C-alpha cells in the first residue's frame, strides 16, 4: 500500500498548455523581430554600396540631378551639431527638472504642474515642436533658418524624455544613502551632487542616449527650422544646414537611382552614428562603474 503524499506528476494537460504558451511566446517574439531585422537588412543591403570615403567626406554641392557620387558630409556635420546643441539645452534643463521633482518638491502643487506638462510635452508630435520654433524663433524673432533653430526644436522633444528617465533613476536611489550622507553632516546640495547623481549616473546616461537616438532621426522639425542645403555649413548659428534625416528625405524623393542609393546610405550612416553614440555611452558608464575600478 502506498501512502498518499499529495505529490503528483505534472498532468498531461498542463504540459500541453505549457508547450502551447511557450510556442505562442516564441511566435510573438519572432513577429516582433521580423520588422526590425528586415529594416536593418534592407538598409545595410541597399546602403553598403555607396558607403565609401567619398560619401563620408563630400557634400552634394555641384552634384547634378543625374550624377553619381556626392556624399553626406554636410548632413553628418549638421546632424552632429544639431543633436549636440539640442543635448546641451535639453540635458541640463531636464536633469535639473528631475532633481527638483525628486529631491526638492515633496509632491507640492508646482511639482504636479511640472509633471503634468512634462507628460503633455512627451505627447507633442515632433512637427509641432518644429512649427513652434519656426513661428517663434525663425519668423517672429526673425533669426532665419539655422542648425541652432533645429537644435531648439529637437531639445523640446528631448527634454521630457530626459526628465522622465532621470526622474525614474533618481527615485531608484535608496533613501538610506541620502540619510547616510546627511548623517555625516553633508549639506543637501552636496549630497545630491556627490552621492545621488553618481549613484544614478549609469541610468541617466542610458536615458539621455535614448533621447538622443530619438531626436537624431527626426525629420519634420528639421525641415521647418534647418531647411535643406547641398553645401557644407559648419556654422550652426547662421544659414540653412543639412541633417541626415533631411538628406535621406531629400534624396529618396529624387527620381533617379543614384539619389535613392545615397538615401539608403544616408539611413545606414544615421543608424551607425546612433549605434556609435550608444557604444560611447556604454563605455562611459563602464568606465565609471565601481565594478571596473574594483577589478
Amino acid at each position, binding site marked *: 500500500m502506498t501512502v498518499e503524499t499529495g505529490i503528483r506528476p505534472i498532468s498531461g494537460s498542463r504540459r500541453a498548455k505549457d508547450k502551447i504558451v511557450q510556442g505562442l511566446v516564441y511566435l510573438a517574439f519572432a513577429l516582433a523581430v521580423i520588422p526590425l531585422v528586415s529594416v536593418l537588412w534592407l538598409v545595410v543591403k541597399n546602403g553598403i554600396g555607396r558607403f565609401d570615403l567619398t560619401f563620408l567626406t563630400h557634400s552634394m554641392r555641384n552634384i547634378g540631378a543625374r550624377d553619381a557620387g556626392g556624399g553626406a558630409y554636410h548632413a553628418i556635420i549638421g546632424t552632429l551639431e544639431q543633436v549636440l546643441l539640442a543635448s546641451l539645452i535639453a540635458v541640463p534643463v531636464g536633469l535639473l527638472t528631475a532633481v527638483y521633482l525628486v529631491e526638492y518638491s*515633496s509632491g507640492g502643487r508646482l511639482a504636479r504642474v511640472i509633471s503634468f506638462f512634462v507628460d503633455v510635452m512627451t505627447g507633442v508630435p515632433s512637427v509641432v515642436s518644429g512649427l513652434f520654433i519656426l513661428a517663434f524663433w525663425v519668423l517672429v524673432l526673425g533669426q532665419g533658418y539655422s542648425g541652432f533653430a533645429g537644435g531648439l526644436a529637437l531639445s523640446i522633444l528631448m527634454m521630457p524624455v530626459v526628465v522622465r528617465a532621470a526622474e525614474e533613476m533618481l527615485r531608484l536611489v535608496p533613501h*538610506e544613502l541620502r540619510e*547616510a550622507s546627511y548623517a555625516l*553632516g*553633508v549639506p543637501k546640495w552636496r549630497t545630491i551632487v556627490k552621492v545621488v547623481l553618481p*549613484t544614478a549616473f549609469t541610468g541617466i546616461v542610458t536615458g539621455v542616449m535614448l533621447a538622443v537616438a530619438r531626436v537624431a532621426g527626426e525629420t519634420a522639425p528639421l525641415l521647418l527650422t534647418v531647411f535643406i542645403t547641398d553645401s557644407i555649413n559648419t556654422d550652426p548659428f547662421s544659414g540653412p544646414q543639412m541633417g541626415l534625416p533631411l538628406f535621406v528625405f531629400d534624396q529618396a524623393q529624387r527620381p533617379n537611382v543614384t539619389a535613392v542609393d545615397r538615401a539608403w546610405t544616408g539611413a545606414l550612416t544615421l543608424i551607425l552614428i546612433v549605434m556609435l553614440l550608444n557604444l560611447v555611452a556604454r563605455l562611459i558608464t563602464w568606465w565609471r562603474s565601481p565594478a571596473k*575600478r*574594483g577589478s
Partner: protein
Amino acid sequence: MAKQIEVADLDAYYGSHKAIEGISMTIEPRSVTAFIGPSGCGKSTFLRTLNRMHEVIPGARVEGKVRLEEQDLYGSDVDPVSVRRTIGMVFQRPNPFPTMSIFDNVAAGLKLNGRFSRSQLESIVEESLRGANLWNEVKDRLNKPGAGLSGGQQQRLCIARAIAVRPQVLLMDEPCSALDPISTLAIEDLISQLKQDYTIVIVTHNMQQAARVSDKTAFFNLAAQGQPGKLVEMDETSKIFTNPAEKATEDYITGRFG
C-alpha cells in the same frame, strides 16, 4: 570630545501623528546608553531627533529641547548640517555609498565637507578603519568598492565612516540587527572601545546586547497602538535588568510582553 546630551520634554510628530511624547533624559558623556522597547514605541524616532535627522522625512517635526552641553540643537539659528557633523549616526542596515571605494567611503564625510590633503585623508582613513576594527581586513583593497564587503564588514565600514568626521556623539540605530553573531560581537567590542572617546547611544531589540554593552538603559513603551511612545524609565543598566522600578519594564525584560 564626548559631550553630554540633555533632552527636555520632547515631542516628535509625523504629520499630525504624534510618535513620541514628553521625553526628558540626560545622556552621559563617555558612556553607552541603550534604548530598548517594543517595535513602534518611538526609540528610533527619538534617536533621530537627537541629531535632527527626524526632520529629513517630509512632514516630520519636533517640539521641545535637546541640549548638547547647554547649546539648544533646535535653536532658530542652528544649522542642522553642523548638528549632524557633531552627532554622527550609524543605521540599521549597512549603507556604504555604492559608487565609492572603501577608502572614499571612509573619507566621504571629510571630502564632502572640506579640503584635506591626500596624506591627511590617508592617515584619518587608516585611523578610522583601525578604530572600527576593519583595517586589517581591508588594508590591501582600499580601492575596491565598499559594497563588495560582507554585511558585518559593511557595517563596520559605516562606523568608520561615521567616526572619520570626529563627531562628539555617535548614535546607532540597531546596528547589529542585520548581522550574524560573530559580526555582532565584533561591533559590540568596538562599541566598548569607542566609549572611551565618544558618547554613544544605541537602539537595540536585543536585550542581551543592551545588558552587555550599555551603562545606562532607557525603556520606551506605548500605551496602545496609535498612541505616542513614552519613556517609561531610565536607570543604570544593571538596575534595569535586575530590579526595575516599573512593572512594565520587568514584564518586557522577562519576556512576558512585547
